[in-house]
């Protein structure tokens, strides 16, 4: 290891620390789970009510479950199964991503968005 290696590693870890700090400052309890495929919203549901939804697209299928106020992916026919292993999410900004299916489950704050919709500039 050379000096520049250590500087590089230090810089990368510092950026990671800043990122973690930023994420912890902005996150708050979310209100709803929104599922998008190819950037298009296909399903949206409140976290306060249990629900199961099967997303079928030409890319493949994923089962999204809302249980106990948290959203998770319980089944998927993608090769890597990364989305299925992801922990359940319930904070705004948190996401579960299925890269092969171009599917994203994200947590949103339901009320705030409506407020913004009401403001026209």
């Amino acid at each position, binding site marked *: 290891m050379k000096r520049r290696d250590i500087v590089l590693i230090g810089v*990368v870890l510092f950026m990671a620390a800043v990122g973690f700090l930023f994420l912890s400052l902005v996150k708050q309890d979310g209100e709803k789970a929104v599922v998008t495929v190819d950037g298009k919203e296909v399903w949206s549901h409140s976290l306060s009510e249990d629900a199961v939804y099967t997303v079928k697209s030409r890319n493949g299928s994923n089962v999204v479950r809302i249980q106990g106020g948290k959203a998770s992916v319980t089944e998927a026919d993608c090769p890597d199964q*990364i989305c299925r*292993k992801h922990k359940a999410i319930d904070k705004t900004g948190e996401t579960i*991503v299925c*890269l*092969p299916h171009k599917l994203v489950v994200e947590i949103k704050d339901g009320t705030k968005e409506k407020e913004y919709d009401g403001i026209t500039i």
Partner: protein
Amino acid sequence: MTRRIAVDGMFLTLAIVVSYIEVLLPIPVGIPGVKIGLANGVIMVLLFFTGWKRALFISVLRILLAGMLFGNPMTIVYSLAGGILSIFLMALLKKAGGFSAVGLSVAGGVAHNLGQLSVAVCLMENVRIYYYTPILLVTGTIAGIAIGVLTAGLVKKVPANLFQ
């Protein structure tokens, strides 16, 4: 020329085999892009002995073949973005000098993660995916250090006249 074809074939095979080993040993954390990056060790040996063009060539072939064998078309797109960015950054830092295999490998690993993530953001039209950046910076660094140490050992053992 014959020798070059044989050596390239050998390295490509090795890179595909280690890709398969990684498919067999997934890291079950549910975060897209977290991996050891064993194939980068093979590619880095090429980078050290033969320069970036041959390393890039083998890396692109590796991603296409491993993607067809163990992945799906989408995983090829993500890996290509990460792999190409990673080789360019490693080649650049190698040229700049002052970095060992560990530094190059960390830069390559992190570049691979960020390139892949950026393509995912574009394809899925969802900026939220950048949520994974901090954790990927950490896991990319850890994997990069491990692969860098491995590569430094390999570079010492591999006979340089193999690439003549």
